[in-house]
């Protein structure tokens, strides 16, 4: 598929940057993959899963640092599983339709596992959700669940006349669901910034670091609701995106102060709240964020200033930071820090016995441990770091956490 290799190349060459753009384009690409997959007569969901997984593996490998790619691939896999279950449930037990489709709405489930689920739906979920203690206790007749789902599969095999219709319906509904996902990614800024007024109060001082579009929209929204507050922007060396953010904020009439990153600790005592964006939120509630963030989080903790991370749900990553697939950092070119031309004579390998004396390191990200984060604000509301795994369980299926191993075994 030409667009796949094109997209992979773009990811490899770091031509697409930023979680939002990546997530959106990944979702669009996977949508076209799904629509182009030819559906066999049997086991249609599996063939879709394989197709998505095969592409997904390449995409993840193309830029392992951009965790949003993997997130979206897993979301799509999860969508396929859910749609498969619901459609087979529809064909098998037509009565369950309404309940199942309600359950699909992830937002409804944020409170935790659904309590009032019918037997089939519960069985279906038990295959999708990680088995937490709660679900184990709730789903009394666990042994019944596999038999039912397998009978669903059998029934699919039996009713051959239905098949093509079901296949089309499955594909169609998966594409529909992916469209919803894309919409969700697009709307994440609005959804998050709607909550701005609940968090930003009159005459407060907000500190942020670097430039995050989510943070910008969040601050804009608060300003639009006529909150008056001040913003401190730490410039975010070495890329100095904070300067850009400051300009943008001033255009919206926000009172803005630019400070250096190294002045954060000096200024933090005047700050009421720290609001920052993130690159990814890991399953343990840890945050991968632009470099310098850990320092800011530690400063905030020292002065008991709330440290708030705003991020769209596409940044929720079901992996833990200790997973081997997670590349926590990317080292960029040192030329962001210093001019190559100016320092080239310091890097003359001919003169100093062949070993370079000067090294310049330019990491992109920091890891902020979960205990430093006071609150996460995603499009579904505010969350505690300790509850991130539950939120993540709503979006991803446990079977998809490791995409690579699965696909190598299936291929």
């Amino acid at each position: 598929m030409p667009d796949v290799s094109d997209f992979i190349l773009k990811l490899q060459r770091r031509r697409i940057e930023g979680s939002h753009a990546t997530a959106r384009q990944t979702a669009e690409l996977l949508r076209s993959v799904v629509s182009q997959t030819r559906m066999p007569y049997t086991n249609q969901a599996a063939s879709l899963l394989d197709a998505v997984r095969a592409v997904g593996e390449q995409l993840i490998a193309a830029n392992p640092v951009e965790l949003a790619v993997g997130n979206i691939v897993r979301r799509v896999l999860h969508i396929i599983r859910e749609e498969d279950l619901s459609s087979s449930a529809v064909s098998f037990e037509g009565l369950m339709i309404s309940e199942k489709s309600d359950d699909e709405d992830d937002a409804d489930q944020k409170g935790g596992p659904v309590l009032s689920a019918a037997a089939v739906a519960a069985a279906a979920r038990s295959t999708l959700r990680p088995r937490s203690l709660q679900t184990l206790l709730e789903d009394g007749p666990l042994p019944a669940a596999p038999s039912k789902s397998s009978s669903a599969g059998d029934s699919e095999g039996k009713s051959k006349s239905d098949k093509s219709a079901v296949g089309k319906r499955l594909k169609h509904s998966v594409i529909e669901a992916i469209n919803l996902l894309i919409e969700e990614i697009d709307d994440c800024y609005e959804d998050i910034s709607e909550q701005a007024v609940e968090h930003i109060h009159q005459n407060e001082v907000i500190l942020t670091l670097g430039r995050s579009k989510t943070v910008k929209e969040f601050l804009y929204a608060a300003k639009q609701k006529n909150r008056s507050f001040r913003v401190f922007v730490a410039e975010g060396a070495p890329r100095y995106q904070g300067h850009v953010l400051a300009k943008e904020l001033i255009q919206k009439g926000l009172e803005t102060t630019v400070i250096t990153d190294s002045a954060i600790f000096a200024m933090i005592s005047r700050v009421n709240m720290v609001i920052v964006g993130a690159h990814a939120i890991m399953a343990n509630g840890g945050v991968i964020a632009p470099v310098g963030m850990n320092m800011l989080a530690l400063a905030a903790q020292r002065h008991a200033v709330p440290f708030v991370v705003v991020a769209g749900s596409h940044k929720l990553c079901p992996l833990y930071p200790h997973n081997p697939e997670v590349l926590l950092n990317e080292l960029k070119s040192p030329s962001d820090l210093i001019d190559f031309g100016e320092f080239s004579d310091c890097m003359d390998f001919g003169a100093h016995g062949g070993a370079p004396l000067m090294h310049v390191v330019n990491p992109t990200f920091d890891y902020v441990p979960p205990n430093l984060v006071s609150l996460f604000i995603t499009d579904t509301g505010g969350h505690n770091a300790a509850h991130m795994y539950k939120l993540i369980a709503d979006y991803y299926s446990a079977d998809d956490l490791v995409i690579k191993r699965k696909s190598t075994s299936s291929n």
Partner: protein
Amino acid sequence: MAQKKGGKTAASDDPEELARTPLQAVLLADTFNLKFRPITLERPKVLLPLVNTPMIDYTLAWLESVGVEEVFLFCCAHAEQVKEYIGNSHWGQSHAGFSITTIESNFSMSAGDALRFIEGKNVIRGDFILITGDTISNMSLTEALQAHKDRRKKDPDTVMTMFVKRSKPMPLTHQTRLGNDEIMMAIDPETKQLLYYEDRFDSSKRAVTLDKSLLADNASLYLRTDLEDCCIDICSPEVLTIFLDNFDYQHLRRHFVKGLLHDDIMGKKIYTHEIDSSYTARVDNYRSYDTISKDIIQRWSFPLVPDVLYAGNRAQMRLQREGIYKAPDVTLSPSVRIGAFTAIGSGTIIGENSSVSNSVIGELCTIGRNVSIDGCYIWDSVTIEDGCRLSHSIVCDGVHLHTGATLEPGVILSFKVEVGQNITVPAYSKVSLLPQPSKQDSDEELEYADTNSGVIDSPSIASISPANIEHDHVSSFDTEQSVLLEGGLSGVGYIWTSCETGNEEEWRYSVAPIPVEKLKEFYAKMFDEDESSSDGEQTGITHSGELISESKSTDFDDSDGEYKGDVSKFEKEVEETFERALGGVAEENVQLEINSLRMSFNVTHAECAGAVFQSVIKSAIIASNSSKSNLLKATIDAIERSKGLLSYFITNVDEEIEVILKFEEMCMEITREFAPIFSSVLHQLYDKEVITEDAILKWESEKADADESDKVFVKQSEAFLKWLKEAPEEDDEDE
């Protein structure tokens, strides 16, 4: 293509049309030089791995990233290999908006030929990027491209924008960190127009000759030596026409750029674009191979770094702590020590207690126990047995090092060479399975001399069975300066005698760092030349070469014994004055200074002459770089240079005799290296009319009754003296 060709004529003047033509690039997959011999006999340079990725991948990735849509890949030497590589790699598959067309020509001998060939193909329709397949860059083109187009709109005579980057050459060696020679450029600070370009600029002369019109026509210009040519150009289609019109243009810089700059007839203009933060470099020689590899490992070329750019079929390397790149399936014994900034390719196995630092190791290599590898570039499928020591070498695919082999700095082992047990390959040797082609052109011609290395009469490896090779080489090793077989076990390969640069220059372009002794030499030389060194001198001497400090110290000890203290002091002052004189102070001033010194120290004219002469001889020692063979030549030069000064101070026979005595004394005590060439120097002094016949003969008679030990030099000069006596008439006529 046909309908686009029609647009070509319109394209050149209509800016709208110009903007719509796809951005094209001409990629020369041949460097038209022999700097990477012997490796390039078997594989084209663009396919040589740079941190385990062929160089051409870096270039293509960059072209693709800057929005080039059509690449014309010009192959010459080993065209088949290049084409095969491109065909098999992902570049061969069609990408949206990026296509590669290979153009093959077997008879192009230079970049000029290549461009003329491409012009003949009639494929270039607008501005294009000219680049060689060994250039690594991550810069953005948009700004420069826009500037180029704007200039073209204003002035259609603009033909080229050259990329330059700041890079300070080493003050000692006058060589950039990439091993290139210093370049002198004159650039208009306002328009950035290139006015002067000289890549063979001789910095030792401390003078540059500019056309006076250059200064007359330009209100201001910058003369810069701290720029490096990136070897990436944005060219207008006219460039091809110019090459076609001037069929003798071969080299892009030496002929084309200089030709345009120096011939006003054409009125074509070249501009420069200086890049600051982004990275661009060209692998021109082994030193730049080393430097650029290290830059890539240090991620200056991001995103063209090993953990991002990889097109091979095996597992990709990943970056770990301390700048170590390692593929996931590398097998390391727990006791292996991996130093910082090292890359290890997939499938490589390293045995116990081995250490690797500052090196790149390719894929599927097997490295035994107790091996030490420092600063080496080891390519794929190399076998290194236990106990080998490698430092600062390049080891190509399939090489086999038997137990205990040692590679000294700067060694190049070409494909499939074998080194026998406990053999030491001497520094800077190049070993290849293929014999060295006998026809070697002069250094000047090499740039565009025969480059169809594939076509050379050398037998291909495939045609010789391994047994044959060994047999062949046993005999050849006897005649050549072979060391590989000494250990009794088999070694396979020819040692090439250094061809391009001559042995003394070998260190300059080698992968090995510049040896400390060389730097010391340069250090000493620089202080010698430095005008303002009278203060720095004292400290400088202690750092500099042994020779000088030794001569200094003995100077003090002995002279204190024999002379009054202030004579030696006077000699020292004169010496320093003389050193300043070498730095470029006018001769009259030096005369004045020495004269005033003579008065203030109250020494005789004869002593003064002796001191001046001593300074001259000492400067000769320094200039000779302490090598015996150069000494005489350096002395002659020094005498020639300061002839005026000497003849000013040496006016009568007494002073002349004093000079000879002084020289004799120096030869015996301070500067013993002159002893063997005493008579030749004497002859020179006579030839240069510093010393007359009378003085020499008087000196002989004076020495006649001295004791035997003092007559060593008289005896040495016997032949000369005899000749002097026999041909007096002739000399009279001369005078």
